[in-house]
């Protein structure tokens, strides 16, 4: 159902689904984690959670008037902003971080950007018309049913996600702009798999299941009904909780730069990856980054091996070699115990 005024279901009112909520918050704290893939059947509040995350997002300081949302003071800028910086016209402004949606069936030109044909024909000048990848820069890029995305769109996403840059070489346009985004995808695994390449680009993955506990199920329905009856009142009720979350995220972001992962934490990450037989060190990096974000939410500036073990349930599931006969659920407890033994 569509609400007229952006009456969004508050994030903090979502019942259960702790892993999903944690993954989303950690990504907001540390965007370099690389996004999250949320897998689960229909009706598990996947989309609700992502959309309601928007309200908790911090502000960004960007260069005024840039359609690509170039961050102020960043080393990566679009050609216009490089021009602005070099001519001293780089005034900054605060804008809230957004959730930019990439709908299925989007065309290549809409995603990557394209030649502004109208402009070309009427003015005889070529102009770049930014696409979704430009809008997503510095923001969250949300793809619902990401597994149903067409191959050539996935290629575009992969390129941008890998480099943080969108290169356009098409329709007579040659253009480059930064495109760093938190990629959030939701999917129903029954409808098909994700290409391994894209799967690998997600920093975290969580599998959500429909709530089984009867009491909680009732709670979900009650809250939902309450929200639909009186959205404003409902939101009011949770505003304190929302503020607390917002502050948590902000505080964590503020100390994130001071968070240090020492040798023991790095060692723990590497050990876990090797132990689970995961390919590539992208997993190691994701473990450290996520653990750093986690430590920051705990108000700590030192990452301990336990943090690494704690976040492994978010970092590892989609990276482990697929074995259809085994449940891919990771036993964090066991892992923590194992790690304890290993490190001691």
């Amino acid at each position, binding site marked *: 159902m569509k609400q007229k005024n952006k009456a969004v279901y508050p994030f903090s009112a979502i019942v259960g689904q702790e892993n999903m909520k944690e993954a989303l918050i950690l990504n907001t704290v540390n965007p370099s984690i690389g996004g999250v893939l949320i897998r689960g059947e229909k009706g598990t509040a996947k989309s609700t959670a992502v959309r309601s995350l928007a309200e908790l997002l911090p502000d960004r300081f960007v260069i005024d008037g840039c359609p690509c949302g170039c961050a102020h003071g960043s080393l990566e800028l679009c050609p216009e902003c490089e021009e602005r910086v070099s001519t001293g016209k780089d005034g900054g402004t605060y804008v809230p971080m957004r959730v930019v949606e990439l709908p299925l069936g989007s*065309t290549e*030109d809409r995603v990557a950007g394209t030649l502004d044909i109208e402009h070309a*024909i009427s003015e*005889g000048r070529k102009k770049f018309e930014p696409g979704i990848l430009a809008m997503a820069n510095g923001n969250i890029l949300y793809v619902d049913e990401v597994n149903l995305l067409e191959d050539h*769109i996935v290629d575009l996403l992969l390129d941008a996600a890998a480099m943080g840059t969108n290169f356009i070489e098409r329709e007579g346009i040659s253009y480059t702009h930064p495109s760093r985004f938190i990629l959030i995808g939701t999917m129903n695994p029954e*409808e098909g798999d994700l290409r391994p390449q894209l799967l690998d680009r997600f920093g975290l993955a969580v599998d959500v299941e429909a709530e089984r506990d009867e009491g909680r199920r009732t709670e979900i329905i009650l809250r939902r009904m309450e929200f639909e009856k009186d959205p404003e009142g409902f939101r009011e009720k949770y505003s304190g909780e929302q503020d607390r979350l917002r502050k948590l995220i902000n505080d964590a972001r503020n100390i994130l730069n001071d968070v240090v992962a020492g040798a023991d934490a790095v060692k723990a990450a590497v050990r876990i990856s090797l132990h689970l037989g995961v390919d590539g060190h992208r997993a190691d990096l994701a473990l450290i980054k996520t653990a750093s974000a986690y430590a920051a939410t705990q108000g700590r500036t030192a990452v301990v091996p336990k943090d690494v073990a704690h976040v492994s349930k978010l970092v590892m599931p989609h990276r482990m070699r697929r074995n259809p006969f085994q449940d891919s659920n990771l036993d964090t407890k066991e892992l923590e115990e194992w790690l304890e033994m290993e490190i001691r």
Partner: protein
Amino acid sequence: MVRDGLRKYTFPFTGIKNNETPKKAVRCALASPNVKSMLICGPGGTGKTVLAESTGSLAPERKTHVIPLGATEEMVFGGIDLEKALGRGERVLSSSILGRADGGIVIAENLNLMPEHLAYKLLNATETGSITVEREGISATYHSDFLLVATMRPDEGALSEHLLDRFDMCVFTSPPKDLDTRAEVVQSSLEFHDDPEGFVSRHRKEEAAESKAIAEARGRSRYTSIPEGYCAAISEVCSGLNVAGHRGDIAVMNCARAFAALDSRDVANLEDLKDAASVCLEHRRNDDGAQPAKEMPEEENEGPGEESGEPEGKSPGESGEESGEQQDGPSENRDRECNASGDRQETPDGDPPPPALDPEEEIFGIGEAYEVIDYLSRDDRGPAGNLGGKRAKDRSDGRSGRTIGYRIPKGRINDIALCASIVAAAPHQASREKGGLAIVIEKGDLRERVRERRRGTTILFVVDGSGSMGAQKRMVAVKGAILSMLKDAYQKRDEIGMVVFRIDRAEEILEPTKSILRAYKALEDVPTGGRTPLIHGLLKGHEILGGKASKDTMPAMVILTDGRCNVSFTPGKPPLEEMLSTARALSGTGIKFIVIDTEAGRLRFGLALDLCRSLGGTYLKLDDLNAEHIEKSVRIAIKE
């Protein structure tokens, strides 16, 4: 190379140290005013390009032109002259590659990668010497007489027989046969690249003498004659090789005259005829190629080992699709290939130790691969034509896929091709209100792109691994068939998966992948033995492919079985009955089914055919897959 001011130096013809037969053919083509086209085939890195380009160095008076792969039709044959249309609003035929090439040489590399209609038009032009343009309001015919030198790598795809037959000559390059020659070839290649000027000047004298000889021969060959009796001999050779049509006969005569002229004679002799036949008939022969025809001459006058550079077997058309064999061309290498697969049958080697086998289980080797027919687009049985059509490509409606042309848009325009629109607007500019611009594009000028999207095909092999497949080593043949289909899928870049059903379950031993290496490994380890849970196989296959049917992919299930299902899925149900009802239920799921009947021996039940009918799929016998078998049986049918 071409004198277009980009690269000044061409590798000199006289600097080529190997490929003696192709070299002879090049001289012959240049020495004959009647030879219009020549195809150079060969694996990569065996000197095709060097040979093709050396024609320019040998005949400096004839200008060389190159047709790049991306060239569009109007640039090759002619279209509207954009500049004139813009400047004066006139519709004039533009300058084109063939328009400029009259009297010259045209090089078209990788002809097999060129759009087929373009290649046809090109070869037609070589035969008629005239080109007609009908497009963008231009209607014109012009004359252009040129020598076409084309190259191709057979492993990248074959040319159709018709196209092949249009070539006057066809030669095959091969790697140097002995070490000394090889070192020499490599050394001269290095030298040329490091110091082209020095290299060319070192060969200048020789090269000049050679090109003078050719120019003289070209003059002389007009007057060279062929003794009367020889014409009949040529016809006999041609029919012995089952060469269709008369192009072959004529080409042999023309080449024989040129060979005679190159030898400063006015009358061709038997030697000339043999040489001519070897370069003109090989690509046209239609016999089974088992033995060289009785008149086919052995090469006598060339260096050692040269004759093995000549293929003795198949026409390149056939070999083009067998990437394994034709790469090698010479028969000795083909033996190597055979040996390799022979070894495989004895010991399935590979590093990992063979998995522990059930007592009743066996692992068979992989039979030899062959060229398969286009089994996916056959629709000769059953009503499953809904997904038919050609497999790889679809015109796409959206803005995805690659541009293959332009059209006048219908309805809403959303995918404008700017350059094509400018071309369309060009002739009207004189009469338009400009408003500061040089070109005014109006709505009627707008062209949109026609895009083509590859529809990926996911092919799932559902393989019967039951004990009956072990009988008479049937599994060897089945594995050979799968390998052949894998090769085919590789060339068409499809996605492949594999399911094996046996004992009491179906197992996905390969999730759909594009990595053929993985597929091959999985194939190697397919075990045999136990009962036949065919229904399990069908359901597993559906589980894997079910979600794949979309506008982007076409899923196909290739079921290799004898249909003797003897395990039911639902306990208590009769297996055969359940198999057929399951099959009927699957028939409308958007998956294309191909049933390959592996039944052999005298006693046949024909159950696979029943299965196929229920699935609404395409039915083939294992032997039907082999394109060569089909061709042969068709040929026999025609003759009788």
